[in-house]
C-alpha cells in the first residue's frame, strides 16, 4: 500500500470519527441523532461498544442504519448475530454501493464503496442496516460467511459486480458473470451499454480461451474426484435440463445414484437488471421489474413502486391500495399454480400441470381485462395504477372466486393425497427453522418449517393490515410441506381477493402528487406551472428526492425488495434487487446431500424458483 493511500485511509478514518463524535453539533444533525438514539436497538449497541465507532444515518424507510468502520465490523456483526438477545439470525441482504459519483451524502462517512448488510430479526420483527465505508484502493473487508451461511453467494456477487474482496471467503469466484469477464459490472466506470464498448469480436484464440475457461475440474468446485477406492461420477445437470426450470446448472458428485455433493452454478440468466436501473428513469424501469420474477407479474412492481413512493413521499389513495392487492394476489395464485403443476410434473405426474395451466389462463383473462397485459402487465405506476378498473371487472373476479375452490379441492385429491407423491416428498429435503433462517430463506420455504413469518402480517404494506387472512404453516420443512403451504396460500389469496371485491373503495386511481407518474393532467391547461411540471415529468421522468429506501414485501416466492438509492435525479443511483430465489438456491447442497437424483428433482421443484429472479 502506498503512502498516499495510507494517508487517504487515515483521513477517511478521521472523518468518520469526526462525524461520530460531532453528532450533536448542527441542527439537522442533532435532530437526526436524537431520532436515531431513541431507537432501542441502537441503545443496546451503544451500551456494548460506545458511541465513537458509529455514525447514524436516517433513511426514509425507518430501518435503523448504522455506519461501522471496517476494523469493527466483525465485532459488531457477530454481536448482532450471536450475542444480542433475539438476535438477527438472518442476513437478509448484502450488497455494495459504488459511491464515487454520488452527490447527496450529507452526514455520511466518506467512502468509494459502501458494503451494506441488511439483517433481519424475526423475533424482534425488525430489519437493521449496517454499512461499511471502503476506499477504492483498498476495497477489502472481512467475510461474514462464518456468521451467516448465505453470505457466501452474496459476497461472491459483491466481488463479481463491484470488485470488493472479502477476506476469509472460502471460494471468492465470480458468480453471475463468466470467469473471463473483464472489470466489475456494477461499478460506475463500467459501461452499461454495448454502444459504450468496442464492437464485440470473437477470434479463434479467444474462443478457445473462453471454452478452456469452462473446462470442468472437480477441485475448482470443491469436490474430490475420488475417495478411498471409489471414483465418483460427475453429472452435469443443466444448464439445459427438463427439470431445472430455466437455465440453471447443478454439478453433481455421485456415488451410484446417491448425491455426495451438489454445487449449483448460476448466472446463465443474468441480464444486468440492477445496472439497467441506473440508466432508466424511475418510471420506465417498472417494466423491467416485471421480468425479474417473471411468474409474478405486477407482484414485482409492488416493492419497486412502494419504495419510490416512500422516497417521493406519495400517499396513494385507498382504491389504489386495494386494486394493487387484488392484482398481486391474483398473480400469487397464478404463480403458485405454475409451481403446483410443475411440482407434480417433476415427480412424474403428467396431467395436473395441464389443468392448472387452464386455471392460470382464467387468472390471465382477468388480468388481461383489467390491464391489457398477461404475464407482464407493468401496470402499477408511481403513485397509483395505470388505469381505473374496467366495467364488469367485478363479475369476472366473482366468477373466478366461484370457479377456483372446487378445482383446488380436486387437486388435493389428485396431488396432495396421492400416495406416491407423499412417498416421494415427505421427509425429503427437510430443513429446520434455524437452518432456514441462517440461509436467508423466506416465503413458503420458511413457513414450511413452522415459523410464522409473513411480511404481509408482520410489517403490513399497501394496506394488508385491513384484510383478514391466515398464514398457513408447515411442520417438517420438507418438500411436501412446502407444497401444502403454497396450496393453502392460494385459498387465502382467494379470501383476500373476495374481500377486495366486496370492499373496493371508490376514488381516484392515482395520487394527487406532483411526482405521480404520469402526472395528473386535469389542471395542465389551466396554469403554466402545472403544465411545465407535467411536461418535465413526462419527458424526463420525475425527479425523486435523494435518499435511501427498501420495502420488503411478501412476493410469490418469498421476501422481495428493491433497495433504492436516489441521488436526487431522474434515475436511481443504485437499484438493488433482493430476491428470494437467490437465497433459496444456495440451500440446494444442504438439502440434497445423501439423497438420490430423483429427490434432488423433487427438491428443486419444491423450492419454486425462477432463474430470472435468481440472476436478475
Amino acid at each position, binding site marked *: 500500500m502506498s503512502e498516499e493511500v495510507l494517508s487517504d485511509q487515515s483521513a477517511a478514518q478521521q472523518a468518520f470519527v469526526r462525524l461520530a463524535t460531532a453528532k450533536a453539533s448542527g441542527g439537522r444533525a442533532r435532530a437526526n441523532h436524537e431520532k436515531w438514539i431513541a431507537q432501542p436497538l441502537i441503545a443496546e449497541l451503544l451500551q456494548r461498544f460506545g458511541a465513537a465507532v458509529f455514525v447514524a444515518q436516517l433513511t426514509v424507510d425507518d430501518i435503523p442504519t448504522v455506519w461501522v468502520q471496517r476494523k469493527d465490523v466483525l465485532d459488531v456483526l457477530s454481536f448482532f448475530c450471536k450475542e444480542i438477545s433475539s438476535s438477527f439470525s438472518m442476513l437478509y441482504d448484502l450488497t455494495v454501493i459504488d459511491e464515487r459519483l454520488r452527490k447527496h451524502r450529507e452526514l455520511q462517512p466518506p467512502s468509494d464503496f459502501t458494503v451494506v448488510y441488511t439483517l433481519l430479526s424475526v423475533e424482534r420483527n425488525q430489519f437493521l442496516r449496517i454499512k461499511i465505508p471502503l476506499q477504492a484502493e483498498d476495497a477489502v473487508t472481512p467475510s461474514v460467511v462464518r456468521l451467516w451461511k448465505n453470505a457466501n453467494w452474496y459476497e461472491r456477487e459483491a466481488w463479481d459486480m463491484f470488485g470488493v474482496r472479502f477476506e476469509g471467503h472460502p471460494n471468492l469466484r465470480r458468480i453471475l458473470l463468466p470467469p473471463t469477464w473483464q472489470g466489475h459490472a456494477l461499478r460506475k466506470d463500467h459501461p452499461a451499454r454495448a454502444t459504450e464498448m468496442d464492437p464485440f469480436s470473437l477470434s479463434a484464440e479467444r474462443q478457445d480461451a473462453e471454452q478452456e475457461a469452462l473446462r470442468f475440474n472437480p477441485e475448482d468446485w470443491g469436490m474430490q474426484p475420488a475417495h478411498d477406492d471409489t471414483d465418483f*461420477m460427475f*453429472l*452435469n445437470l443443466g444448464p439445459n*435440463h*427438463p*427439470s431445472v426450470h430455466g437455465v440453471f446448472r447443478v454439478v453433481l458428485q455421485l456415488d451410484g*445414484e446417491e448425491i455426495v455433493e451438489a454445487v449449483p452454478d448460476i448466472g446463465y440468466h443474468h441480464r444486468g437488471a440492477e445496472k439497467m436501473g441506473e440508466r432508466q428513469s424511475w418510471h420506465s424501469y417498472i417494466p423491467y421489474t416485471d421480468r425479474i420474477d417473471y411468474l409474478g407479474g405486477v407482484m414485482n412492481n409492488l416493492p419497486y413502486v412502494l419504495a419510490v413512493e416512500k422516497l417521493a413521499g406519495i400517499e396513494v389513495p385507498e382504491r389504489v391500495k386495494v386494486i394493487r392487492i387484488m392484482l398481486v394476489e391474483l398473480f400469487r395464485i397464478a404463480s403458485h399454480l405454475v409451481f403446483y403443476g410443475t411440482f*407434480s*410434473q*417433476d*415427480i*412424474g*405426474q*403428467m*396431467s395436473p400441470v*395441464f*389443468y392448472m395451466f*387452464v386455471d392460470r389462463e382464467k387468472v390471465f383473462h382477468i388480468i388481461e381485462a383489467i390491464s391489457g397485459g398477461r404475464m407482464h402487465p407493468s401496470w402499477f405506476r408511481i403513485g397509483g395504477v395505470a388505469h381505473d378498473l374496467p366495467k364488469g371487472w367485478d363479475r369476472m373476479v366473482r366468477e373466478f372466486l366461484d370457479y377456483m375452490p372446487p378445482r383446488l379441492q380436486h387437486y388435493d385429491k389428485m396431488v396432495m393425497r*396421492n400416495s*406416491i*407423491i407423499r*412417498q*416421494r416428498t415427505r421427509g425429503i429435503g427437510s430443513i429446520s427453522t434455524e437452518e432456514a433462517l441462517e440461509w436467508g430463506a423466506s416465503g413458503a420455504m420458511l413457513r414450511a418449517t413452522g415459523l410464522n413469518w409473513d411480511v404481509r402480517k408482520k410489517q403490513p404494506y399497501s394496506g394488508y393490515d385491513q384484510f383478514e387472512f391466515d398464514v398457513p404453516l408447515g411442520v417438517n420443512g420438507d418438500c411436501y410441506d412446502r407444497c401444502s403451504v403454497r396450496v393453502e396460500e392460494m385459498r387465502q389469496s382467494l379470501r383476500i381477493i373476495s374481500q377486495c371485491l366486496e370492499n373496493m373503495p371508490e376514488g381516484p386511481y392515482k395520487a394527487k402528487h406532483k411526482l405521480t407518474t404520469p402526472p395528473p393532467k386535469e389542471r395542465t391547461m389551466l396554469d403554466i406551472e402545472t403544465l411545465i411540471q407535467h411536461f418535465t415529468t413526462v419527458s424526463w421522468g420525475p425527479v425523486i428526492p435523494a435518499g435511501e429506501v427498501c420495502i420488503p414485501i411478501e412476493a410469490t416466492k418469498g421476501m422481495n425488495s428493491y433497495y433504492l438509492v436516489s441521488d436526487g435525479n431522474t434515475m436511481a443511483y443504485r437499484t438493488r434487487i433482493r430476491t428470494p430465489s437467490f437465497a433459496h438456491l444456495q440451500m440446494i447442497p444442504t438439502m440434497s446431500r445423501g439423497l*438420490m*437424483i*430423483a*429427490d434432488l*428433482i423433487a427438491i428443486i421443484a419444491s423450492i419454486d424458483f425462477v432463474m430470472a429472479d435468481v440472476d436478475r
Partner: protein
Amino acid sequence: MNNPVTAIPIIVAVLLGIFSFAAVLVWAERRLLGIWQDRYGPNRVGPLGVGQILVDVVKLFIKEDWTPPFADRIPFIIAPCIILVVSLLGFAVIPVAPGATISDLNIGLLFVLAISSLGVYSIMLGGYASNNKYSLLGGLRSAAQMISYEVFMGLSVMGVVMLSGSFKLGEIVEAQQSMWFVVPQFLGFLIFMIAGIAETHRLPFDLPEAEHELVAGFHTEYSGMKFGMFMVGEYVGMVLVSSMIVTLFFGGWLGPFLPPFVWFSVKVLAFIGLFILLRAAIPRPRYDQLMAFGWKVMLPLSLLNLAVTGGVWLWLHA
C-alpha cells in the same frame, strides 16, 4: 406346429397387424392424453389427426441418421434393433384366434417370458454405448428394474399354468371356456399387469427414461429412426403385454356373437387404454422405492399366490 408355407401369410398378417396397431396407438395415446388433460392433442393432419402417424413416420425416416462420435458405434446401432425384434418375436406364440398362431409352441408361455427378458439387453446396450451419463444411469436402472420385476412376472403366471395344466397359450385360452382365469387368479393378474408395465417402461415405471431426472434416459443420444425403433419397440411391447394379459387372464379370443379376432382386439385395446390412463394419472416412484416395492411386496405376494393356488388345486383334485 404349422408348416412353414401356411405360416407365411399368418406371419405377414400378424406383422402388419402389429405395426398398424402400434402406429395407431401412438396417435391414440396422444389423443387420449389430450382429452384427459383438457387439451387437443394432434388434430391437424387428416380426420381427427390420424394422418399424424404417417407424418411422424416420414419425419423419423428422413431425419439424419446420426451416431454421436463418442458413442460405441456397433452396440449403439444394434441396441434399438434388439428391442424391436424381441418385442415382435413374442407375438409368434400369441393366439389371436383359434388356429391363428404363427407357432403354437408347447412352451409358448415360457417363450414369451424368455424373449421379453432379452429386451433388457437393448436398453442396457443403448445406455452403455451412448457414452452419456444420463443414458448410463437409465441403462442401469433398467437392468435392475427388469431383473427384479421379471422374477415375479414369471411366478405370477404359474397359477394360470396350474389351472390350465399347460404352457401352451392356445390351450390356456381353451381352458377358460367356463371361467376367465382373472377370477380365480385375480392377484396373479394384478401382479402380472404391474410387472408387464414395468417391462415396457411405461409410467409409473418409466424410470429408465424418467424425463425429469434423466432427460431421456437410455435413449438420450438417439434420434431419427433409431429412436423411432425404441419408440415402436415400446408400443409393440405394450401390445404384447396387453395380449398376454388377455390371453392368460381374460379368455383370449373367447366371447359370444363376435368373431374371435374381434374379441381379442377389443380386449387388447381395453388394456392399452388402461395403460394410457395410468400414464395420465400416476406419478413416478423413486428408484429405490420401486425396487423395495418389487422385492418386499410383489415377490412375497406372488409366492403367496402360487402357494395358495397350488394348495387349493391339490385340495380340489386330490
